[in-house]
């Protein structure tokens, strides 16, 4: 297989632009509907999520399905009518409990709600109870700390790359990063609109991991471009980029594949909490490999063409210099 990324670059740019545009449109619609570009989870807006499972060791406790209407009436009576209620099903498809998302509740309010629900539904098993209460202040903190971490990571990576490579390499690597993040966020905006998928602080973690991985991929191709330029300064940049992409292609595919294998494993077996996290990583890592091959490298070639650096530095600067010292 031989890719001609330079010749086909308009195609890849069109695909990327379309994906990014779709995401931005979804974020815009989302903004109009719920006041945020993505559907924010408990972590960011604050609130209480309660998960109760029935104690099935007690006789006749788990026989009937969960009566959502009864739960709803309890919630209304407690003045929590706007809460989100869902039944939990176990692996055999039987309904064994409920999750409820409400405004932040303090201990007393929670206690009262729990006993009211227990009265209607049956005895809950305390060892299967999950409670998450996040105050609005904490939510804000988690969000801004996450955002700050993202910016710091960007700056750190940009500085490292401009030291190890050159400024233009660093800039296009960052452009590719933005591309990956934007598409991942965009897809989650779409998922939020279609399937009510929410993002929490693990989503920010996923974005940062994507940043680390995506740039990792770009660096390998850049490394090859730099090496080839140093060895063959007389070759055209387009040619070099094509060759570098192709000679690292098997590696790009295989690395992404092994990582995706583990991610699918987390997605399938890892449980509810990690599902969305794994999904974000699957999207982001795929985009990361894609953008390294089709975006970061083609943009670098275009830039070098436009700025008259089509060929490497004249042979006067001995190739061995730049390479061996950097390579070891």
């Amino acid at each position, binding site marked *: 297989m031989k890719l001609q990324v330079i010749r086909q670059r308009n195609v890849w740019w069109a695909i990327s632009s379309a994906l990014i545009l779709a995401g931005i449109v979804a974020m815009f619609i989302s903004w109009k509907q719920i006041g945020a570009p993505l559907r924010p989870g408990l972590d960011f807006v604050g609130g209480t999520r309660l998960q109760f499972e029935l104690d099935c060791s007690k006789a006749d406790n788990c026989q009937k399905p969960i009566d959502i209407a009864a739960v709803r009436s309890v919630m209304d009576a407690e003045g929590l009518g706007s809460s989100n209620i869902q039944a939990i099903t176990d692996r055999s498809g039987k309904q064994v409990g409920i999750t409820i998302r409400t405004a932040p509740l303090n201990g007393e309010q929670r206690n009262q709600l729990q006993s009211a629900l227990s009265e209607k539904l049956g005895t809950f098993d305390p060892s299967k109870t999950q409670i998450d209460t996040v105050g609005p202040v904490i939510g804000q903190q988690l969000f801004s700390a996450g955002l700050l971490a993202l910016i710091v990571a960007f700056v750190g990576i940009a500085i490292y790359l401009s030291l190890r490579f050159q400024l233009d390499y660093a800039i296009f690597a960052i452009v590719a990063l933005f591309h990956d993040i934007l598409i991942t966020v965009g897809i989650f905006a779409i998922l939020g609109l279609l399937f009510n998928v929410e993002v929490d*602080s693990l989503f920010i973690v996923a974005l940062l991991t994507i940043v680390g991985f995506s740039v990792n991929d770009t660096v390998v191709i850049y490394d090859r471009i730099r090496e080839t330029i140093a060895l063959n300064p007389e070759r055209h940049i387009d040619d070099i980029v094509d060759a570098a992409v192709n000679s690292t292609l098997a590696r790009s595919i295989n690395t992404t*594949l092994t990582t995706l294998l583990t991610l699918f494993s987390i997605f399938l077996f890892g449980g509810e909490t990690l599902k969305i996290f794994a999904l974000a990583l699957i999207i982001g890592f795929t985009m990361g490999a894609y953008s390294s091959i089709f975006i970061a490298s083609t943009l670098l070639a275009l830039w070098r063409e436009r700025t008259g650096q089509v060929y490497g530095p004249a042979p006067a600067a001995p190739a061995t210099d730049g390479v061996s010292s950097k390579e070891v």
Partner: protein
Amino acid sequence: MGRQRYLLLLIAALVIGAIVVILNVPTQLGLDLRGGSQLTIQVKPTEEIKEIKPSDLDAVRRVIEGRVNGLGVSEPLVLTAGKDQIIVQLPGVNDPIQAERVLGGTAQLDFRKQKPGTEAQLGIERQQLREKLTLQRELRKSNDQAAIAKNQAELKAVNDSISALFEKTELSGKMLKDAYPSATNVQNTWDVGLQFDQRGGELFAELTKSIAGTGRTLGIFLDGAPISENFAYSVDVKYAQTGITGGNAVIEGNFDLETARDLAIQLKGGALPLPVEVVENRTVGATLGKDSIQRSIYAAIGGLVLVLIFMVAYYRLPGLIADIALVIYAILTLAAFNLLGVTLTLPGIAGFILSIGMAVDANVLIFERTREELQSGKSLYRSVESGFYRAFSSILDSNVTTLIACAALFWLGAGLVKGFALTLALGVLVSMFTAITCSRTLLLYTLSFPGLRKPQYFCPNLEPVKAEA
């Protein structure tokens, strides 16, 4: 080959050491895996203390620690976080509501003396207080929020006018040595017994002496409000000479056991120097935690097996060696977690599983390079050597960028996020070692066996010599 053998021994020793560590040092599991409550307590500034200094935060932490100990949870953890927060971890706690109530309450106890000439007034106010409190209990059942709020406001007004009838004394909760629930003669009602330290005992005697037989009362206030319906006590005239000595007192509040115990814990824990609020509570039941561990183990094994199969299928002999290196990687990383006391959380496990997938990246880079060298006609040994040599720069750069992202997460992230960053970063570091040193040593050792020195084991369908494009 002497060097290779030496390195092999070193690796073997490391692996054996790691297995010993894994078997002997228990893995620290986060609360999301073993069940328990994590509370984040926000410390709030007051009129007097507008800015919370580290010493203030530490003072609050010590009080909270005292209260946590009163809860009787095993292995609790109380940490300060940021400038004004305290994180409390309570493993295995099954009543997060009690924990929240006890830890978040302010509980400033003080003893006051009724002002002369207020007897009639106090009688009226006490009647008012009783009515409001009874009404409040009924309203709570009906859940009429507006009525509750209205009654609450009226209650506060009564409390304020009662407070005005008393004057503060020096005796306060700070002078308590012990507080405990004590049973009364009536079934299911409890008092809270108090024992003062020496100074407190003296003050208490003085206080009781001054009102003994006067008909005026001694009032007990919690956070500036009467402690319950029964908050004011008259002292019998027989104590007029000496006061009540011995430093013991009883708060008769007709409490139920739970309330009496909570109050005792709060009092014993001392008064908080600043008001606090529980702003985050994450509680996971023990069974749910066990379930998460189970699922994580499935996910980890599933991911590992898939990667192992892929590597052998694609890279043949080197793939097998990469697999050995990967298993060594998994063992060393787990041992490092145990040894460094990394608390494994759910995202942390995800970070570990993910690092399995990423750990082979270095080997993939190296083997691809080796193949290229082989295709360009170099000898097997030299191809392997230069594969390692030439891939190193890419491996270093790509891992450093991942570490930068981890560092950002670790410094700025909170709680669970930190766990993920730490496990991923440790994984990256260990993988650099195993992918480069372990697989290199093993590979070169393998090459010392003539039977294995066949290029097609390294690169299937190797074309005879191909000029580089």
